[in-house]
C-alpha cells in the first residue's frame, strides 16, 4: 500500500480506479501517472512482486476454420461439414476434429469458446488487432499488445523482458502493418521482445544475447556502470521520451549480460526426449521455449504460428490454386498434427512441472472461415463465428462456452466478442480489472480492456 493523502493505493495490483479518481479529484498536485511510476522507480512500490499468473498465447495466424476443427457440424450438408470427422474426447458431449487425437484426450484441461465473433472487417489484420489488443484501430489511434499492457502495469520480474513474442513478428498478411503487436503509446520499454530467430535450427542463436565481437564481460560491466552514472545526471533533466529510451536500453543491456536470460533461451539444456515431444519444428520448439521463458521469469509469451499467409502451409485455407493454396491436405498432414503435438506437449509439460495453475494458455486466431466450402473446397475469411480456447490458470476447463447454429455461421448462444476474451485472459491471470488501471494516451488512466470477463469460464 502507498498512502496518497488519506487514500490508500494498492500498488501490488497496479492502481485502483476508485483511488485514482478520488486522488485525481484532489487536484493537479495529486497522483499523476508519471509520479506514480517515479515512486515505483524509487522503490515505493515493488510491483515486481505482484502476484499475477503468467500467460502463453498461441496465435494461429491465418485462422483455422471452425467447422473443420473445434466446432464440427457432422449433420450439416456435405458442402458445410467438409472432409473431416469428429471424434469423442475425454469430456462427455464434447467432440472435436479427428486430427486432434491427443487434444481429445485432454479436453478436460481446455475451455472452448465456440461463439466468438467480431463486427469489423474480414482481413487478417482486423482480427489480429482485436485478439491482441481488444480493439480494432487505425494508425492514428494504435493500441498496445496485451503483453505490453502486462509489462507496463506489472513490469519485468528479473532480467528477462516481461513480454516476448516468438519466433518473430507477424509480417505481411495482406492488409497493412497494423497487427497489434506493438506497445503503442506505452513506449519503447514495453515493446515486445522479438526472438527473430528460429529455435528449430541446429545452430540457433539470438543476436541480442551475444556480446559483440571483442567485447569482454568486464568491459560490458564497465560500460554499464558508466551508463548508470550518466543516467543519474540525466534524471534531473529527462523527458519521458528520454526515460523510455533509457529503459529500453537498460533492458537490452540486461539481456546481453544476464546469465539467466541466456539460460532461459538455451533450448540445448532440454533433453532430446522433451524436444521431440514438442516437435522438431519451428512452432513446437517455440512452444518449448515459451515454457522455458515463463520459468525464467517472463510474464507474457506469444507464439506466432506463422508470420505470413502467403506461399507457405498455414491455416488460411482458401485453396485458391495460387499464393493462398492451403487445402485440406495442409490441415490433415501438417497443421492439425503439428498443433496437436505441440499444444498437448505444452499443457502436459506445464502440468507435470506444477506450472499449469500459474500459467494461462490461450489459443487465439483472427476469425473463422466460411461455413460453406468455396468452389475449390477451401474456406474464406469469416469473422461472424469461430472457436478459440483457454487452458491453465483458474479457468474452469472441460466445458464449452457458447454455440453456433447448425452450419457454424453465427452464434446462437452466449455470443462472445474479442474484448471479452481479453478480459477473460486478464482475469485468468488474476488481474482485477476493476482495481487495476493502465495508462492511456497522455497518461490518463484507462481500463485495461473495455469488457467484462466471461463468468462461466471461471471456477
Amino acid at each position, binding site marked *: 500500500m502507498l498512502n496518497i493523502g488519506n487514500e490508500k493505493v494498492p500498488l501490488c495490483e497496479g492502481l485502483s480506479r476508485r483511488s485514482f479518481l478520488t486522488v485525481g479529484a484532489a487536484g493537479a498536485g495529486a497522483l499523476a501517472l508519471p509520479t506514480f511510476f517515479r515512486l515505483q522507480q524509487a522503490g515505493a512500490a515493488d510491483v515486481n512482486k505482484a502476484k499475477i499468473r503468467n500467460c502463453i498465447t498461441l496465435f494461429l495466424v491465418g485462422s483455422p476454420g471452425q467447422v473443420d476443427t473445434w466446432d464440427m457440424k457432422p449433420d450439416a450438408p456435405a458442402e458445410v461439414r467438409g472432409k473431416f470427422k469428429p471424434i469423442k474426447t475425454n469430456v462427455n458431449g464434447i467432440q472435436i476434429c479427428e486430427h486432434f487425437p*491427443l487434444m481429445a484426450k485432454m479436453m478436460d484441461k481446455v475451455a472452448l469458446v465456440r461463439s466468438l465473433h467480431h463486427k469489423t472487417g474480414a482481413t487478417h489484420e482486423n482480427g489480429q488487432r482485436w485478439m491482441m489488443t481488444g480493439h480494432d484501430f487505425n494508425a492514428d489511434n494504435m493500441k498496445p499488445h496485451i503483453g505490453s499492457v502486462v509489462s507496463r502495469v506489472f513490469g519485468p520480474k528479473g532480467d528477462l523482458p516481461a513480454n516476448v513474442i516468438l519466433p518473430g513478428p507477424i509480417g505481411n498478411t495482406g492488409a497493412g502493418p497494423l497487427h497489434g503487436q506493438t506497445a503503442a503509446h506505452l513506449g519503447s520499454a514495453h515493446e515486445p521482445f522479438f526472438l527473430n530467430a528460429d529455435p528449430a535450427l541446429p545452430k540457433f542463436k539470438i543476436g541480442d544475447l551475444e556480446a559483440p565481437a571483442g567485447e569482454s564481460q568486464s568491459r560490458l560491466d564497465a560500460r554499464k556502470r558508466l551508463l548508470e552514472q550518466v543516467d543519474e545526471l540525466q534524471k534531473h533533466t529527462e523527458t519521458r521520451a528520454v526515460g523510455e529510451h533509457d529503459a529500453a536500453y537498460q533492458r537490452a543491456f540486461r539481456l546481453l549480460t544476464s546469465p539467466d536470460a541466456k539460460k532461459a533461451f538455451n533450448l540445448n539444456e532440454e533433453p532430446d526426449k522433451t524436444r521431440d515431444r514438442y*516437435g*522438431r519444428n*519451428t512452432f513446437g520448439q517455440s512452444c518449448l521455449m515459451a515454457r522455458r521463458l515463463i520459468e525464467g521469469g517472463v510474464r507474457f509469451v506469444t507464439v506466432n504460428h506463422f508470420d505470413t499467409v502467403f506461399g507457405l502451409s498455414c491455416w488460411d485455407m482458401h485453396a485458391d490454386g495460387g499464393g493462398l*493454396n492451403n487445402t485440406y491436405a495442409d490441415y490433415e498432414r501438417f497443421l492439425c*498434427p503439428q498443433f496437436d503435438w505441440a499444444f498437448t506437449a505444452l499443457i502436459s509439460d506445464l502440468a507435470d512441472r506444477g506450472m499449469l495453475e500459474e500459467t494461462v494458455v490461450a489459443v487465439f486466431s483472427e476469425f473463422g472461415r466460411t461455413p460453406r466450402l468455396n468452389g475449390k473446397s477451401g474456406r474464406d475469411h469469416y469473422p461472424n463465428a469461430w472457436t478459440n480456447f483457454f487452458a491453465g490458470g483458474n479457468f474452469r476447463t472441460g466445458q464449452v462456452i457458447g454455440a453456433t447454429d447448425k452450419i457454424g455461421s453465427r452464434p446462437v448462444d452466449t455470443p462472445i466478442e474479442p474484448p471479452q476474451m481479453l478480459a477473460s485472459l486478464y482475469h485468468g491471470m488474476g488481474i482485477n480489472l476493476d482495481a487495476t488501471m493502465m495508462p492511456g494516451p497522455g497518461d490518463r488512466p484507462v481500463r485495461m480492456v473495455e469488457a467484462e470477463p466471461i463468468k462461466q469460464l471461471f471456477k
Partner: protein
Amino acid sequence: MEQKFDATPKAELRLKGRQVTRTDVTGDWGLQLRWVVKRDGKEVATAPARAEHTYVHPDTTPGTYEIVLEQFKYMNYAKNPQGEYTQSKFVAISNAVTYTI
C-alpha cells in the same frame, strides 16, 4: 517464414502376433504419423498412428502383410490442381514388420 524441421525421425516396430507396437519417435517432426499396411506388396490400408503406440490391422484376408510407420515430410506447399501436395510426401521412419495369414 516457413517452418523448419530439424532432426530425422525414427521409430522401431515390434510384432507380436498381428499386433504391431512402435517406440516413441525420436527426432519427431510433429507432423502426421500413420501406419501403412501392404498385403503381398500392394498398399491396402493406412491408419492414424499418433494417438496409440499399438495397431492391429483388422483385415484377415490371407496373404503376407508388411506394416511400416510413416511420417509426413514437408518440403514446401506446392500442390496439384486437386489440392494435393506434389513435393511434400510421407516417408518411412521405421523398420518394416511382416506376418502371414
